C-alpha cells in the first residue's frame, strides 16, 4: 500500500467527537483464540480510565488494541470497531504509525533507549522530521516539565537515560511518549516495577497530564485504580476463556457500590 492510499485521521480541531475513543463490539483474536470478547466502551476526554481485572482477563490486550500494538503480534486480528475522531482505527487505509503517534503508550517496565536523556525525548520529534535544534530544545524541555522530570535532569540532559532511577526512567518514558503530542496516553501497568514513592509520583503526574491528555491505564493494583482514575472498567474471563467487560462506571461507584456481583466480589477480594 502506498502512502497515497492511506487516509488521514481527522484531528480534534476538525471534528470533536463526543468521546475520545469508542470501542464497538471489539473482539480480539490470537489465531483462533478469542482473547477479548465483544467489548463496547466509550472513553471520555481528559479523564483517566482504569482497566482492572484478574490476570489473563484481556485488559492489556484490550489496551494494546487501542493503538494497534496488537498488529505486531503474528496471527492477531480484531472484529468490531474502534472509533477515534470518528475514524475506525482498524480501517485498512488507516496508517498504524499515525495511530501510534496520536495514541501513545507507556509500558510496564521503564524502557528508555540506550541514549542520552535528551535524545530519548527528541527521538519521536526527530522521526517526525523536526531538525531545528531550538525547536527540539523546546520540545525536550516542555515534555520533561510535563513529565515532572525537568528539575531533576536539566543539568544532565546528555547523560544516559539508563543512569536514572526506575521512577525517573518511567517519567522519562512518559516524556518521550508526550513529546510527539499524542491525544491519548495508554499506560500498561506503569508503576508495577516501581517502589511506592515513585508510584505516587507517577500517579500525581497522571493527574497533571489529565489536563492535556486522555489516559487509559491498565493496573493490577486496585487501590491505584481507586486513587487515580475517574472511570473504571472491570473485566474478567467468561466461560469460553475470553476476556469480557463486566462493568464500566465511575470509579467511585465501582468501589463503593458496584452494580454487578462479580465486580463486588473482585473489588472486595473475594476472588482474583
Amino acid at each position, binding site marked *: 500500500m502506498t502512502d497515497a492510499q492511506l487516509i488521514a485521521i481527522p484531528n480534534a480541531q476538525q471534528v470533536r467527537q463526543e468521546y475520545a475513543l469508542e470501542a464497538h463490539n471489539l473482539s480480539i483474536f490470537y489465531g483462533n483464540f478469542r482473547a477479548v470478547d465483544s467489548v463496547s466502551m466509550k472513553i471520555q476526554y481528559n479523564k483517566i480510565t482504569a482497566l482492572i481485572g484478574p490476570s489473563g482477563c484481556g485488559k492489556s490486550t484490550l489496551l494494546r488494541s487501542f493503538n494497534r500494538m496488537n498488529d505486531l503480534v503474528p496471527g492477531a486480528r480484531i472484529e468490531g470497531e474502534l472509533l477515534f475522531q470518528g475514524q475506525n482505527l482498524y480501517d485498512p487505509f488507516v496508517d498504524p504509525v499515525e495511530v501510534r503517534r496520536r495514541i501513545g503508550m507507556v509500558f510496564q517496565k521503564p524502557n528508555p533507549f540506550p541514549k542520552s536523556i535528551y535524545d530519548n525525548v527528541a527521538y519521536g520529534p526527530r522521526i517526525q522530521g523536526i531538525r531545528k535544534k531550538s525547536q527540539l530544545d523546546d520540545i525536550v524541555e516542555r515534555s520533561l516539565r510535563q513529565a515532572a522530570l525537568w528539575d531533576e535532569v536539566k543539568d544532565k540532559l546528555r547523560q544516559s537515560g539508563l543512569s536514572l532511577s526506575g521512577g525517573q526512567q518511567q517519567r522519562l518514558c512518559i516524556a518521550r511518549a508526550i513529546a510527539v503530542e499524542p491525544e491519548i496516553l495508554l499506560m500498561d*501497568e506503569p*508503576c*508495577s*516495577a*516501581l*517502589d*511506592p514513592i515513585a*508510584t505516587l509520583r507517577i500517579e500525581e503526574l497522571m493527574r497533571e497530564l489529565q489536563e492535556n491528555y486522555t489516559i487509559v491505564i491498565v493496573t*493490577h*493494583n*486496585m*487501590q*491505584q485504580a*481507586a486513587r487515580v482514575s475517574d472511570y473504571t472498567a472491570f473485566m474478567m474471563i467468561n466461560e469460553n476463556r475470553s476476556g469480557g467487560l463486566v462493568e464500566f462506571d465511575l470509579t467511585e461507584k465501582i*468501589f*463503593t*457500590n*458496584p452494580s454487578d456481583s462479580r*465486580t*463486588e466480589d473482585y*473489588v*472486595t*477480594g*473475594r476472588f482474583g
Partner: protein
Amino acid sequence: MSTTPPRSRSQLDRELMLLRDNVLRLSTMVDAALQQLQQINRQLDVAQARQIIADDTKINRLRYKIEEDAYKLIARHQPTARDLRGIITSIHIAVELERIGDYAAGNSRLLLEMVDEALLISTFSNITRMLDLSRQMMRNAMNAYVHWDEEQARRVIQRDNDIDAIDKQVYQELIDLMTKQSHTISHATYMLWISHNCERIGDRITNICERIIYMVSGEMYYGIRQKGEEL
C-alpha cells in the same frame, strides 16, 4: 512491586465479624439501660437510676473502641464496596447507640431530680410506651443490620411516627396541666424533657436505619427529601 498483594479475606472477614459483634454488644448494653429506665419509670429506684448513669461510661467506652477498631480495619485492609459500607455503617450505628445511652442516663438524672415529687401516672405510662416502642424499634433495627435487611430498616423508620405521636400527646397533657395547676410547672417541665429525650431516641434509631439502608443498597437515604432532589 506495587501490585496489590492477594488480600487475606479470612482475616478481613474475622475482623468484620468482631466489629459487628461489638456493635451488637453495644446495642444490648443500651437496651439494658432502656429497660432499667422503664423500671424506674414505674417505680423510682435511686440506686438503679445511679446505676444507669454509671453504666453509661461503659457504653461510651465501647463506642470509642468500635470506632477505633473500624479505623484500624480500614487502614489495614482498605475495604471496598459492601465491606466499606458495612464498616462505615457500624461506626455510625455505634455513635447513635451511644447517644441513646446518653438519653437514658439523662432521663435517670432528671428522675433523680424528681425523687420527692408525686409522679404523674398517665405521663409515666406514656413514657413507658415510648420506651417500649423504642426498644422494639432498636431490636428490629439491629436485626436489619445483622441480616442486611433493607425492608425491615424501612419498616422501623415508619414506627417512629408512633413515638412522635405519643410525645405530642404528652406535651399537650403537660401544657394543660401547667396551665391549670401552676404548682406542677417544675415537675411537668422535667417530664417534658424526659418525653422529649424519648422522642429523640426514636430519631436516633431512624438514623441507624437510614444508615442500614445505605449499607445494603449503596444508595444514600435522604429521609424526607425526594431522591434526585438537589441538596
